[in-house]
């Protein structure tokens, strides 16, 4: 069984590293998701094209391969990244690409009359976006962002492969040291599940706030379940389109 010394020197910091990687990658991913998502609704075709290429390339890429490439191949081009930042960038870049589709889809789902009303009131494009479209699109974005955030949390386990000392890395160290595998990996799985659960609860609160902001009450859902409703899945089929998550 794992000694308490090991637990405090490797496992607890590992949990903290996992949380850090999740938060940093989510921040980078959110910035990219909104940047690319908005660029894909631009009026200029060249902006749409460049954003579209980014989306297709990073969505088609395996996060693990990208991470390896950034860790092993990029230094030879002259950029040596700290392992953690190689991991964070790889995760942020890929999950940002998935997120851009959520942003684009939710913006497109805002009723056209709302946009036209903005035009009629002589709002600038930026004012329309900030005051009319985004506030209405935001509550629609939260549930798919929750799913994406959990995919991201699961993706952070990959950073252990490029020597970042997250909790999976600590688990592997313990396996090499003691050969006691059952408790370690069971504990790891439970920890990830608990983190995913906390994220889902947190996002539920965000969703309630967002819906209240536009005068809607969210529908009641089960305790743990973050299951997509039948509508959610068909919307996903329609807007999130090919490539999927993960």
């Amino acid at each position: 069984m794992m000694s308490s010394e090991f637990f405090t020197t490797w496992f607890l910091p590992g949990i903290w590293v996992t949380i850090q990687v999740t938060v940093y990658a989510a921040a980078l991913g959110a910035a990219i998701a909104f940047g690319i998502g908005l660029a894909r609704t631009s009026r200029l075709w060249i902006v749409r094209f460049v954003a579209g290429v980014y989306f297709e390339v990073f969505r088609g890429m395996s996060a693990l391969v990208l991470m390896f490439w950034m860790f092993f191949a990029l230094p030879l081009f002259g950029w040596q990244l700290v392992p953690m930042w190689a991991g964070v960038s790889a995760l942020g870049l890929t999950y940002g690409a998935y997120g851009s589709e959520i942003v684009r889809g939710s913006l497109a789902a805002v009723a056209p009359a709302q946009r036209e009303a903005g035009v009629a009131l002589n709002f600038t494009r930026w004012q329309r976006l900030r005051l009319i479209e985004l506030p209405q699109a935001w509550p629609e974005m939260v549930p798919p962002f929750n799913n994406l955030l959990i995919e991201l949390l699961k993706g952070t386990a990959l950073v252990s492969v490029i020597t970042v000392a997250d909790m999976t890395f600590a688990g592997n160290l313990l396996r090499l040291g003691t050969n006691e595998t059952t408790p370690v990996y069971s504990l790891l799985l439970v920890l990830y599940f608990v983190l995913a659960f906390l994220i889902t609860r947190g996002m539920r609160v965000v969703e309630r706030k967002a819906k209240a902001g536009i005068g809607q009450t969210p529908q009641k859902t089960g305790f743990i379940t973050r299951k997509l409703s039948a509508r959610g899945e068909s919307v996903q089929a329609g807007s999130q389109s090919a490539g999927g998550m993960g």
Partner: protein
Amino acid sequence: MSWDWNVVEDFMPRFWDGVLVTLQALVIGTLIAFVLGLVWALAQRSSQAWVRWPVTAVTEFIRNTPLLVQLFFLFYVVPNFGPSMSPLTTGIVGLGLHYSTYTAEVYRAGIGGVPVGQWEAATALSLSKGRTWRAVILPQAIRRVVPPLGNYVVAMLKDSPMIATIGAFDMLGEAQAFSNETFTTEALTVVGVAFIVVAYPASLLIRALERRLVR
């Protein structure tokens, strides 16, 4: 940094070996995911609570934990009290099991998306249970199910390099081994490009399917 085409050329034979292993994992993993997912979905629709609850709990747990750790679990823990499998077999089982929990949701949504009126009409026409499923429900559910299932196949392709971490020689495994032996990195770039080259047409294909099936 110099790019050396000779290195790429040396890597190519092993690259194709890796492609074969990746494809093998993908095809068998997909089959497992599709079949097992249907089993989960039907079990979750069961009228018996003692079937419904455990299955829902297990699939939620598998879906919310990382595939990488599940692979470690299958490879290092399961042999302690169960069968010990080769890295590739473990990888295939892991991929199939993990994605079956996603496909279960797809089937569930597809079947649930068929309007209630269709069930009622089948009852009104006094169709048998088998006939209701075969002639009324499934043909309508399939249309909704195919595009998201396709998405998950592409997602599985992108997760397949994870099986290299437990020692399977898929595309990434071969690239890693080659890079370590020759102190080069071209192989990794080749594999990265290969993923985009495969995934992009695949996603175009799924989008075309979506347009045809979902109307």
